[in-house]
C-alpha cells in the first residue's frame, strides 16, 4: 500500500512541476516575457530544465528588444522618407510671381497623374492669390513629354484660362517638339515660346510693358 502512495505522491509532484513549467511556456508563447521561472531547490532534471528555460527566456527577451529597436529605427526612417517626399512634392511645383500679375511655374521631373493634379491645384491657387493674368509654365526640366503628360498640361492650361489667366509654355526642346509633332499633339491653342526669357518678354508685351535701357541723367 505504501508503495502505491509513494507513486501517487511522485505523480502529483511531477504533475505540479510540469504545470508550473507549462504556465511559464504558455505565457512566453503568448508574448508575455514578464513571467519568471521558479528554480526549485531540489537538484533533479526538472531543475535543470527550469534553468535552461530561464536562459531561453532571457535570450528571447534580448532578441525581442533588438528587433523592437530595429523596428523603431525602420519606422523612423520611413517617417523621415515620407517627410522628404512631402517636401519634394511641395518644392516640385512652385508658383513664383515675377512681376505684377505675372507668374512663373518651373516644372522639374516626371509628371504623373498625382503630380499633375497637384500642379493644377497649386497653379489655380497661385492665379487667384496673385490675380495673375499671365502664367509662364517652364517645362525645361520635364524629361519625357508623351501624350499623357501633354494631356495633363493642356488640362491645366484650360483650367487656368477659366480663371482668366493666359498660359505660355516655354522650354520645349527641339527633341520634345519633334516628338510632340509625331504624336500629333495639338498645341495650336497654346502660346509657346522657346525659353523663359522669351516667355517673360511675351508677358511684358501682352501687359503693355517694355524693358528699356536706363537713360543717363
Amino acid at each position: 500500500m505504501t508503495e502505491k502512495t509513494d507513486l501517487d505522491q511522485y505523480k502529483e509532484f511531477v504533475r505540479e512541476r510540469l504545470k508550473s513549467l507549462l504556465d511559464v511556456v504558455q505565457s512566453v508563447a503568448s508574448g508575455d516575457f514578464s513571467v519568471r521561472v521558479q528554480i526549485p531547490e531540489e537538484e533533479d532534471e526538472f531543475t535543470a530544465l527550469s534553468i535552461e528555460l530561464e536562459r531561453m527566456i532571457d535570450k528571447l527577451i534580448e532578441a525581442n528588444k533588438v528587433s523592437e529597436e530595429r523596428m523603431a529605427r525602420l519606422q523612423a526612417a520611413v517617417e523621415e522618407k515620407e517627410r522628404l517626399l512631402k517636401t519634394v512634392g511641395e518644392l516640385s511645383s512652385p508658383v513664383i510671381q515675377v512681376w505684377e500679375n505675372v507668374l512663373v511655374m518651373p516644372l522639374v521631373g516626371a509628371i504623373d497623374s498625382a503630380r499633375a493634379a497637384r500642379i493644377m491645384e497649386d497653379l489655380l491657387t497661385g492665379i487667384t492669390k496673385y490675380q495673375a493674368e499671365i502664367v509662364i509654365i517652364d517645362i525645361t526640366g520635364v524629361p519625357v513629354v508623351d501624350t499623357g503628360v501633354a494631356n495633363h498640361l493642356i488640362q491645366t492650361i484650360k483650367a487656368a484660362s477659366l480663371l482668366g489667366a493666359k498660359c505660355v509654355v516655354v522650354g520645349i526642346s527641339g527633341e520634345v517638339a519633334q516628338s510632340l509633332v509625331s504624336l500629333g499633339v495639338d498645341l495650336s491653342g497654346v502660346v509657346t515660346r522657346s525659353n523663359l526669357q522669351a516667355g517673360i518678354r511675351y508677358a511684358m508685351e501682352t501687359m503693355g510693358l517694355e524693358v528699356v535701357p536706363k537713360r543717363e541723367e
Partner: protein
Amino acid sequence: MTETIQLRVTTEADVYVAAHQVKALARQMGFNEADQTRVETVTSELARNIVLYAGEGTVKAQPVTRGRRRGLEIQALDHGPGIADIELAMKDGYTTSGGLGSGLGGAKRMMDEFHIESAPGQGTKVTATKWLNTQH
C-alpha cells in the same frame, strides 16, 4: 554589348523608369539625341497604355541586328483586354480612356517598324524597332 532591359510595369512610376532606362540604352547604342527622345517617348506611351488598359505587363528593350543594320527593339506585352480594332486604335484622335488619342499612331510615326498583335481577351503585344542611322 547585349544589354537587355526587362521591366514589369504596373504603376505610373514604372512608366518613367522604363522610359528612362530605354533612353539610357539608346544613348549607349549611339542613337542621336532626337532618336533617344523618340524611343523614350514611345516607351513611355506603350508603358502608359499597359498601366492604363491592362493594369500590368512587361516592357522589354534590346539591341537587335538585321543584316548590317543595328537597331533597338522595344516590346510591350500585357494580358489585358486586348484591342478589338487595331486599325481604329492606331487612328489619331481615337481613344477609349479620354486621353489625347494619338499615342499609338504617334508611336508608330516615331519608329521605323511597328507591329501590334492583339485580340479581345488575348492581351496585346507591341513590337517597335528603331534602326541606327550609320550613314550620316
